[in-house]
């Protein structure tokens, strides 16, 4: 449970980072404020995941790895950025619903239920922002379709990457067990520490 909650914390932290970067790109301070508040909200959700993760599994030191890829690099792409966010919010809402039902820890269940409600609010707020950024409902719909297509393509690529990762692991494993014994002795010799030159300084142990 702990690692999963930490993974969600990372996802929310990444969303916060995305909104902070997006806020920096805004030329109008009102839009910047909206992006900033959204960033704070996502950071808050990340902290809540961390908090419950610490309560559920206080012994884990793993922070997890996060790789950043800013989604909004051009302020003119705000509509598309928001569409990606809306799609991600919708997916998170669905995921949190599933986890709320599946979770056996009441603290985690309460968190997932609460965040599921919040993601629904996020999705509605994001659509409003999209409407004002893009102007027409037609463009909003087109943008959302593009975002869903991108999501599906990213998902497909992830499956491809995961599959190739498994294949690579198997191949490397085969190489390791076939070739490893021949190189192990040489490797041991290379990493073996040499003796201390002046050991008589050692105190009695």
């Amino acid at each position, binding site marked *: 449970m702990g690692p999963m909650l930490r993974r969600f914390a990372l996802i929310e932290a990444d969303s916060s980072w995305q909104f902070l970067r997006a806020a920096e790109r805004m030329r109008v301070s009102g839009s910047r404020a909206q992006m900033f508040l959204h960033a704070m909200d996502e950071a808050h959700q990340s*902290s809540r995941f961390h908090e419950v993760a610490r309560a559920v599994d206080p012994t884990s*030191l793993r922070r997890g790895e996060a790789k950043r890829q800013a989604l909004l690099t051009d302020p003119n792409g705000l509509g598309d950025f928001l569409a990606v966010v809306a799609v991600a919010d919708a997916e998170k809402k669905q995921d949190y619903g599933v986890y709320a039902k599946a979770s056996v820890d009441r603290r985690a269940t309460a968190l997932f239920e609460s965040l599921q409600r919040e993601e629904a609010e996020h999705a509605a707020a994001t659509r409003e922002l999209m409407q004002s950024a893009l102007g027409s409902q037609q463009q909003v719909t087109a943008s959302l379709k593009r975002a869903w297509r991108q999501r599906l393509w990213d998902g497909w690529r992830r499956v491809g990457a995961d599959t190739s990762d498994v294949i690579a692991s198997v191949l490397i494993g085969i190489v390791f067990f076939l070739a490893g*014994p021949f190189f192990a002795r040489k490797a041991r010799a290379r*990493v073996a*520490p040499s003796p201390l030159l002046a050991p008589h300084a050692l105190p009695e*142990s």
Partner: protein
Amino acid sequence: MRVLGVSAHFHTAAAALVDNGTVVGAAAEERFTRVKHDPGFPERSIRWLLEERGLRGADLDAVVFYEQPHVKFTRVLASTLSTFPKHHRSFGSAMKRWLGDRLWTTNKLSRLLDVHPDRVGVVVHHRSHAAQAFVGSGFDESAILTLDGVGEWDTTGLGRGRISDGTLDLEILETHRYPDSLGLFYAAFTTFLGFRANSEECSTMALATFGEPKYASVVRQILKVGTDGSYRFDNSWFDFVSLGQAPFTRKLIAALGPPRVPGTPLPFESFRVPGSDTIAPTEDHQRYADIAASAQLVLEEAVLGLANRAARLTGSKRLCLSGGVALNCVATARLLHETPFEDIWIPPDPGDGGAALGAVQHVLGENGLLGPACRSIGPYLGRSYDPGPTLDMLTHMGPGSWSAYRQPGLPPAAPYTLSVERLGDDDDGLVSRVVDDLLAGRIVGWFQGGFEFGPRALGNRSLLAHPARVETALKLSTRVKARAPFRPYAFSIAEADALRAFPQWADGIPYMARWMQVVVPVSEAVHDQVRATLHIDGTTRPQVVSPADNPLYHKLLVAFGQHTGLAALLNTSFNARGEPIVSSPDEALMVFARTDLDTLVLGDAVLRKVYS
């Protein structure tokens, strides 16, 4: 000559740019990605360095990586194969990382920057560290010690540097090779004590103060220090391939007892409020502190041995130090009195991040291009920001909504409104308002100019508080930073008052005191004035600030001292729990909004929470 230096893939990736002999900028990638100690490729740091100056890759004369990836790869191969078949998982994940990415780092740099591969070079890891340690010192000649986790194969380097006519003569006299590593030794104990390796070594150092080195004889069997100053590591006690998970063997557990479970409380406090309830440490808690004290003592013995050996071999009266172990400021403090060196210098970022700059300095030194500007390096090399857009944004966003985003676990905040005041060029007005707030016990976020290159907040991204008020420091620990109570704070002090706090420096203030690199006892005469910044043994890690180092911050210290009698302020890094130090005004505002930080100074603007 315009040279870009890059470090990546182990600990705190960074990039640095030197243009015509001047360091124009340097930054750790974590400041842009907000991933603490981000070891990934420093793409954003590189982009900032180039874009802000209107440069493209084609404008660079050379790009240099801080180590040799192909040599490092042989060490990774050897270390995972040496225990065959035990580490098959580590072997698999390492091979995927290396064959898929890291081995081709120079090609990646060439492709990303659109630079011809001939212009992308590498410098040996410990030569990068050695150049980083020596060049910025301003010394013409010096002994050099590089104390690291591990580079390609080398873990420790002992050498001598000379500069004449802009040419660097770097002589590495001796090295220690993997697995004889002081950095990995200390990181492994850090993991044993339930902290994160390569990240929370400062917690091990702080915990050591609460213990006695009762296990020193065991630890001396692990790290054997000889009379000649050399050392050897016995790797039957630890398993470095598993560093970060459980790198200790049964032999170690049999000798020291079970390791501490991460996240379990450690009831030690660096300061106590009279009458407050404290939990008495159990036998196990005390055992952890004693183990920390033992590891710290043996590390100090090894560092002292190496430094004295360096003095003997080089005959130099000066020492330059780098590598992550140089951040152990309790160990470096002993160098001041227990070695023959008269001057000791550590760069602002002695770790792997700083080695990006070291690699550039090495290349320039080889080409006889080390001018005076490259020989005097300060810490304020990071990006600076215009706070204007953030302040404009505030007109569209009242603080009313902020309470919804408060850090979980904090008690509800008292209701407040926000006052914003811009002072323009009126530095005196700005300083006077901040001093008033500090005197009133408020915690101030101080955001000025470019962010610091290196792990310390030195007056450009700092949280400041009254150094005598323990209750303010406790508030800072519990309601802003969520910091473990056994970790002490430190203070900045104006140069003119430094001797009152540190009379032992009557012959001269050491270089290491400029950037919080040494832990030293504070004169009892001023204890009451800096009570909240003292560790339990009456020591602190000071920053002695001169007007030349940081004029505005110095002015603030002096103005504060006019009211309290000592120009000192509690200074800690401006960040929230688990996050890197803030870099942009929006990030600073977020910490301000989500915690009990009372005042935020963004350039010339003072933002105050006015409590009702």
